[in-house]
């Protein structure tokens, strides 16, 4: 079975996220880049399916040449081929990204299953997988935390407040997966060395831009801790006991 995973190059940020001077982007001058945790799980799942079924695990991204770093990371985890859809923008909007992926899927050999991360680790639009599935008129399930293959059908599991939903879909299908689907492996040294030398197929992007524009990024207002004086001296004791009871620290 042939699986394709779509990944996005995103900055690996610390606790505090610095913005560029114009406030429209994350300041990445001193940051490294990665793929998000959902996508790492998607790559792991694809590699496992390929190993199990004797198929292939491909990885695709959309962006300029530097995004190949993330393709090579996926290759070092065990993906066996990689495709970059060339676009000048580092962060095209979901519509443009979906158009690029859809166009590429038209050019590439057919895949039985196309996996996305539930949402990118930076913008978090959670749109591309659904847009691609719609464009290709394929079934799609989001929030997937379990994938089982059953002949020409796939069972996709997702958690909901009510319990576990299991969706059955005919192949070819699309799924957006969540972290926790599996425990992704670390790349091996051999894997890294293989990935470094692996060819990457580059396709021209459609050149279309989407309708979404980033105007400005803002930091969330700092959550301020509120100080409540419970009382003074021994008189404060009952109030302290109440709080501890409320927190479940004392019965």
């Amino acid at each position: 079975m042939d699986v394709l995973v779509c990944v996005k190059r995103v900055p690996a940020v610390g606790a505090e996220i610095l913005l560029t001077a114009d406030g429209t982007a994350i300041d990445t001058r001193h940051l490294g880049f990665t793929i998000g945790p959902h996508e790492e799980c998607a790559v792991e799942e694809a590699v496992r399916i390929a190993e199990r079924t004797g198929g292939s695990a491909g990885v695709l991204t959309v962006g300029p040449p530097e995004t190949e770093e993330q393709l090579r990371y996926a290759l070092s985890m065990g993906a066996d081929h990689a495709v970059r859809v060339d676009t000048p923008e580092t962060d095209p909007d979901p519509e443009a990204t979906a158009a690029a992926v859809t166009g590429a899927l038209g050019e590439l050999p057919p895949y039985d299953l196309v996996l996305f991360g539930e949402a990118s680790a930076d913008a978090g639009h959670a749109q591309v997988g659904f847009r691609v599935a719609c464009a290709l008129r394929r079934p799609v399930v989001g929030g997937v935390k379990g994938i089982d293959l059953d002949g020409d059908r796939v069972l996709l599991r997702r958690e909901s407040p009510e319990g576990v939903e299991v969706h059955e879909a005919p192949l070819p299908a699309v799924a957006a997966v969540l972290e926790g689907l599996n425990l992704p492996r670390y790349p091996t040294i051999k894997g890294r060395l293989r990935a470094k030398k692996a060819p990457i197929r580059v396709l021209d992007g459609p050149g279309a831009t989407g309708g979404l524009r980033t105007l400005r990024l803002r930091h969330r207002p700092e959550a301020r801790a509120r100080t409540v004086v419970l009382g003074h001296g021994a008189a404060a004791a009952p109030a302290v006991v109440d709080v501890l009871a409320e927190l479940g620290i004392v019965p």
Partner: protein
Amino acid sequence: MTPFPDRAQVVVIGAGIVGNSVVHHLARLGWRDILLVDKGPLPDPGGSTGHASNFVFPVDHSREITQLTADSSRQYAELGTLTTCGGIEVARTPERVQELHRRMSSAHAWGIDAELITPAEVAEKVPFLDPTVVLRGFWTPSVAVVDPLRAGELMRERATAAGALTVSAMTEVLAVDTDDGRVTRVRTDRGDVDTEYVVVACGVWSPRIAALAGATIPLTPAVHQMIDVGPIAELAATGREIAFPIVRDMDPLMYERQSGADLEIGSYAHRPILCEPDDIPSLAAAALSPTQLPFTPDDFDPQMEAALELFHPVLDRPDAGIRHAINGLLSLTPDGHPLLGETPEVRGLWSAAAVWIKEGPGVGRLIAEWMTEGAPEIDAAASDIARFAPHERTRHHVRARACEGFNKTYGITHPREQWSSDRGVRRSPFHEREVALGAEFFEVAGWERPQWYASNAPLVAELGVPDRPHEWDARWWSPIIDAEHLAMRRSAAMIDLSAFSQFDVRGPGALAYVQHLTVAQMDRPVGRVIYTPVLAPDGGFRSDLTVVRLGDRHFRVVTGGSDGARDLAWFTRHLPRDGSVTLTDVTSAVCTLGLWGPRARDVLAAITDEDVSDAAFPFATARTITIGSIPVLALRLSYVGELGWELHAPTECGLRLWDAVAEAGAPHGLVPAGIGVYGTTARMEKGYRLVGHELDAEHGPVEAGLALPGLKSQDFVGKAAYTKAREGEPEATLCTLTLDPGDPAGHPRFPQGGEPVLTPDGARITDRRGRPSFVTSAGAGPSLGTYLLMAYLPPWHAVEGTGLLVEYLGERYPVTVARAGRTPLFDPDDTRMR
């Protein structure tokens, strides 16, 4: 939270291993009201201490670094934070095998147990390594892993328990105030604190903090890549952080060590990746920590291949994944040495920067001793932050040399090896003539100095100078040096000495000031040239130099180029605060041409109208003469043992001076000669001592054979110790040894300096104070027809005619003590120069 003090005896900035060690030792030495601040949290504030590999290899070619490492190991062990695991440096190439032999020499010189072992023995100690890629191993049983964060905690605890220390984490230093060039106050986001002492122990951030006070700490943050690969069953099975010896795979410039279930692989092979101190992310903005930058895998790929070659039995497994990978930051300096001591720009502002984990506690003790007693026990000359010329403190220079030096971390560096980056910064006015003569330039303090001249190549055959058959012996050397030497002794030579550092001392307090800093009597008639040691408070050498009395209230200090910056800092620090003395650095204003040899007087007489006869211009005097239209300060003295002068002229007149001397000298057979003659061959034949080689802080004038006949009544720095040393017997005597004839290696070999001197049965030699005997200088004595070595020997070996051994690159060579003390082997009565 502890209240923030408004006054401290000393503020130490940075709570990594260095800052913690400094506060611990300051407290031990009696300092109180010590304030330790760090911008980050404790116990790991986010600097390099928190991510270092934490291993300690004790053997280094540098004695100073070896001593700091040994002291640090003792301290880590005493704190219970050291785990001995042993370590092996492996060689994959014959060149590295030779270097391992050199390592053995250093191990013997510094008294560290080590041995060379076979590939099979390497594999016995590290069973998961492929011995077929290894030629030899250098096994050091005392290699250890330390826990610097825990050690730092314990040191803080001790200083706090002594009531000496206040610790303030999460405290950012905003400003360091100064008044009249002295530290007065540190301003932080928790409050301001008045203090007269600040120690900058901020690792990669040190340049930023020093700049707040107007000083420079010339280092650059640079990346050192590390990855952790695991889990590896054999390692996990030990249940320990480290159970196997650490391997330094020297040829690909890497190391591998166990870290729990993982194998940690570090590299000094990748391209130099520098970072600006201002660009280091904050703790909050960093993905891991400020000094663990994002890994750049492309830079590390070749090292992965090298690691696979040696460790494929465990690394080539599907479950051994790269679990951690960082571009860790460390500090690089222009010459690879730490930056220690009071900054030359700001009094009271001390630097304890560019220090590796293996040296941290030793540096803490050294800095504390230096601050307390005025001099540390370990000679810190090579690490003294005052050692840099102004251009060497610039960002451009630091980055250029850091880039060049990074890949030398595990490199094979010849003792005479020259830097190739940022050359040609300081050129004497003779430079274009020297280039035309095919000068081979060596650098000192940025000055380009001819080491020898290709134009003298025909002299090699003419004078029958032998070559050196072994490449290592002949590297950065030419037989032309010996030929220039013989030509000088035969007729005369002119030598470019413009790299000399020169200071003018003037004012009503000038005499008292120079008296205070020197051992020799300075109250001599105007026109006298006075050679003098300059001592540290404990009586060890700081430098030796020449002082010329140019007037009642005017002295000229002439000192070597390599140590000029330290001397300038020392003289500047001791200036009286009442303004009665002015000190002017005239180095750039004056060029110097040495003219020496039996025909030197003939040459000089031909170009000056003044009487330069011995009667009119005796030895050890100075006079202003004119050469053509150039006013020249001529000093009649010699470091090469020949009649002659140093000719000091205005820099802009230098070319005219050069041409006048060259033209007048031609009929007399005068040749240009390089520093190879001045600094090595002629100097050593005359038994003259050189700062940084024979003259160091661990030895005083008595042991160096430079005690003066009389003791002046005036007080001077180091006088008490010097007086005491004069009254007792020296524990060591500086000797000149000759290499015995006969070639144990089958062809002549030439030790280069730094080698251990051993007894005839191969035992290490130390004096009663534990100081080892090793070769301080080595060089040919062409006029003596022998090869010369200098070394301090304890009294029972410092006997002329005694036979000893010198270990050089795996062989032991018989040597003989030819001279104990300072009487020269060549022209012992100094008849030629007097």
